[in-house]
C-alpha cells in the first residue's frame, strides 16, 4: 500500500517538474510584453557607470524618447544589436541610456572601445538588482519610453532590423 503511494507520488512529481520546465521553455520564447506597454515606470535610481552620481527620472525626461538598453560585454547577442544602436545615436529626438548588467568595468569599456559607444548616458548594475525593477528577463533587452515615462515597447533579445525600423517610425510620427 505504502509503496504504491510512493510510486504514484514520484511519477506525479516528476511529471509536474518536467511539465513546468516545458511550459517555461515555451514561455521564454513567446514571452509577451504587451501588458507592459502603456505602463509608467517610476522609482528610477541607477548608478552612473563612471561618475559618482545616480541617474534618476529627471534624466529620462530630457528628450522626447528614451531607449533604455540593458547589455553586457559577456553577452554575444549584444554584439548583434550594437550596429543598430549606433545608427540610432544620430536620432536627435532619442536619448539612449545603457545599463551595463552584471559586468566587469574594464571589459565593458573594452567592449565599447571595440564596437563604439552609442549611449548618451551609461549606468551600471553590477549585481543585476536594479534591472529586476525593470522586469529584465535576460540580456539584451531594451525599453522604449516617452517623455512621460510611459513604456511604448519592450524589446526582448537583440534589437533587430525590424525593431530598428519600429523605433525610427515612432520617432518620426511625433
Amino acid at each position, binding site marked *: 500500500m505504502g509503496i504504491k503511494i510512493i510510486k504514484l507520488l514520484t*511519477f506525479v512529481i516528476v511529471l509536474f517538474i518536467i511539465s513546468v520546465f516545458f511550459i517555461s521553455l515555451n514561455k521564454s520564447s513567446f514571452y509577451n510584453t504587451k501588458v507592459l506597454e502603456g505602463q509608467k515606470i517610476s522609482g528610477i535610481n541607477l548608478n552612473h557607470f563612471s561618475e559618482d552620481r545616480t541617474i534618476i527620472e529627471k534624466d529620462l525626461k530630457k528628450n522626447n524618447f528614451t531607449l533604455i538598453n540593458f547589455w553586457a560585454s559577456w553577452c554575444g547577442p549584444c554584439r548583434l544589436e550594437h550596429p543598430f544602436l549606433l545608427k540610432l545615436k544620430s536620432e536627435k529626438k532619442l536619448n539612449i541610456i545603457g545599463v551595463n548588467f552584471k559586468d566587469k568595468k574594464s571589459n565593458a569599456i573594452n567592449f565599447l572601445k571595440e564596437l563604439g559607444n552609442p549611449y548618451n548616458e551609461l549606468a551600471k548594475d553590477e549585481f543585476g538588482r536594479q534591472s529586476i525593477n525593470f522586469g529584465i528577463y*535576460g540580456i539584451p533587452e531594451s525599453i522604449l519610453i516617452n517623455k512621460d515615462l510611459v513604456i511604448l515597447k519592450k524589446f526582448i533579445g537583440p534589437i533587430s532590423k525590424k525593431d530598428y525600423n519600429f523605433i525610427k517610425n515612432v520617432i518620426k510620427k511625433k
Partner: protein
Amino acid sequence: MLSNVGNLLLSLNILIGISIIFFSIKSLEDRTDLIGKNIYNLCLFQSTSIITCFFTLIAAFIISDFSLITVYQNSHSLKPIFYKISGTWGNHEGSLLLWAIILTIFSYLFLLINNKHPKRYRIYTLIIQNILIIGFLIFLLFNSNPFSLILPAPKEGLGLNPILQDPALAIHPPLLYIGFVGSSIYFSAAIASLLTDYSDKQFAQSIKNWVLLSWSFQTIGILTGSIWAYYELGWGGFWFWDPVENASLLPWFAMTALIHSLIVLEKRNLLYFWVIILCLLTFILSVTGTFLVRSGILNSVHTFANDPTRGAYILIFLSLMILASVFIFFKKFRSKNYNVNSNSKETFILINNWFMIFYLITVLLGTVYPIFTEVLSDNKVSVGPPFYNTVIIPILVLFLYFMSLGPQARWIKNQFNNLKSIVIILFGSILMNFVIVYLFESYSVLSNFIIISSIFLIFSSIKDTIKLFKNKDFNFSRIVSHTAFGFLVLFIGLNYNFSLEKDFNLKVGETKKFDNYSIKFKDLNLKVFKNYKAVIGEFKILNLRNNSEQSLTPEIRIYENPSTLTYEASIRTGLLKDYYITMSNIDRSDYYNIKFQKKPFMLWIWISVIIISLGGFLRLFKNGNKNY
C-alpha cells in the same frame, strides 16, 4: 574540409554506437562468460574516432578556420594559441563535444577495467551508456553542430569573450565535465545492476572508484570556477549562488552522499536501493543542470545565446532518462527490512546523507523556484544569497559535529566510551574561538558557533590521525578530506567576519587612516603603451599592527580609439590576506575615488578545497592497487 571530416566522424560515431549496442545484445545470447573481441575493438575504435573528431575541431581553432560558425563566433586570428585551444570548449557546441568524449572514454575504460564482474552486468552497462552516447551525438549533429559552415567564410572571427580568457577558466570545463559527465557511468551501471540483479557488495566495488574519480574532479572543477570569479569578475567575492554555480554544486552533493553510503553497502550490504537512487540522481542532476544553463530559461553568467529548440531537445532527453530510470527502479524495488542500530557507524553515515539531501533540496529549490513561480503565478522573483545563507549556515553547525563524531563510531553497535576526550576537544575549540575573538574582534553568535564547530572537527580529525599512527593504519584519505573541510569552513568564517571594505577619496601625497591601516597615495605615473596610456597609481598600505608594508598599483587605462577608460584592479595575494585596490578619477578634481578591500585567508580557502579533493585522489590511488 575540416567541416566534412568532423561531420563524417560524428556520423561514424553514431554508427559505431549502434553497432556496439547490436553486438552487445547478440553477445547476451551466447553462453560464454567472455565478452567478444569485436566489442572491445569497437569501443576502442569509438574512443579513437571521437577524440580524432575533437582534435579536428581544435585544429580548426588553431588554424583559425572561420568557415566554421563555432570558430568564427569564438575565436580570432590574433588570439594567443593557448586561448585558441581553450576556445574549443569555451562555447556551447565545443563543450557538448567534450561531453560526448567523456561519455565515450568512460564507457571504454569501464569495460576494460571492471573485467572481474559478470558479463551480463558489464554488457548492460555498455548498452545503457551507448544509448546516452547516441542521444548526445544526435543532439550534437542535428542541433548543436560544431562543424556547421558559414558561407562565404568571414576573414576574421568575433573573438573569445575577453572575460573568458583566463587560465583558471581554460581548465575549468574539462575538470568539471570529468566530474559530472563521468557520473554517467554509474548511472548506466546502476540501471544495469537493477536489470541483471547484480547487487550489493560486488556492485559497490565496481563503481566506487568511478564515484571517487568524478567526485575529486568535480571538487577541483568547482574550485577553478570560483577562483576565476574571484580574480576576473573582481567583486571581491568567490561564491555568488549563481544558477550555474548551483548547477555544479547539486551533483556534488549527490556524489558526496553516494561516496559515503557506498561504504555502508560495501561493508555491511545495506542500503542497496538508496545507493541506486543516488547513482541515478547524480547524473540526472548533471543533465538537469545542463538543461537549465543551456536552454536559457535561467539568466546567468554562463547563458549562451538562447535557442529554444536546444532546450527542448535536452528536456526531452532528460524526461526520457528520468521516466525510464524511475520505471525500472520501481519495477525492481523490493522493500527490505534493515536492522540498523541507532548508535552505529551506519546511522552516522545515513545522517551524512540526510544533510547532503537537505543541502541538495535547498539549493535545488532556490535555483528552480523562480521558474516555478513564473509559470504558476506569473510572478518574477529572484532568490539571492540571503536565502541560501539563512537556510544552510545554521544547519552547518550540526553537520560539522556529526562529521567529527561519525568517523570514530563503530560498525553495527557503537559505544561512546571516549566521552571524556570529546568534552576536552569541545572545550579546546571553545577556548580557541574565544582566543580569536580576544585577539582580533568579536563576531555574531552564529559565527561563534560555526567557528567553534569547525575547530572541533579539525581537532577531532587530528586526534584520529594520532590514533591511526599508533595503529600503523595509513588510510588517511578520509581524514585528509574531513580536516580540510573543517579548515574550509573555518577560513570562510574568518574571511566573512574579518573582511574589510572601504571607499574613500584621496589625492596624490595624501594618506588615509582607518582601523589599523594607513593607505598612502604615493605617486601617480603616466606610462604610454602600444594601444593605450595608463595612469598608474602607487599606493603604500601600511599595517599599523605589525608595520608590514605592501605596495599596490591600480591603473586607469586610456584607450585612444575611441577614447575610453578602463579601471584595472590591483590584487596582492598574500599568505594571510589579500589586498585589493581599484581607483577611478573624479571629474574636475585632483581627487581619486579609492576602493580598498582586505580579504583574509583567500589563499587558504583555495588550498582547503584542493586538499579536500586530494583526499579523494589518495583513496583512488590506494584502491587502484586492488583489483575489483
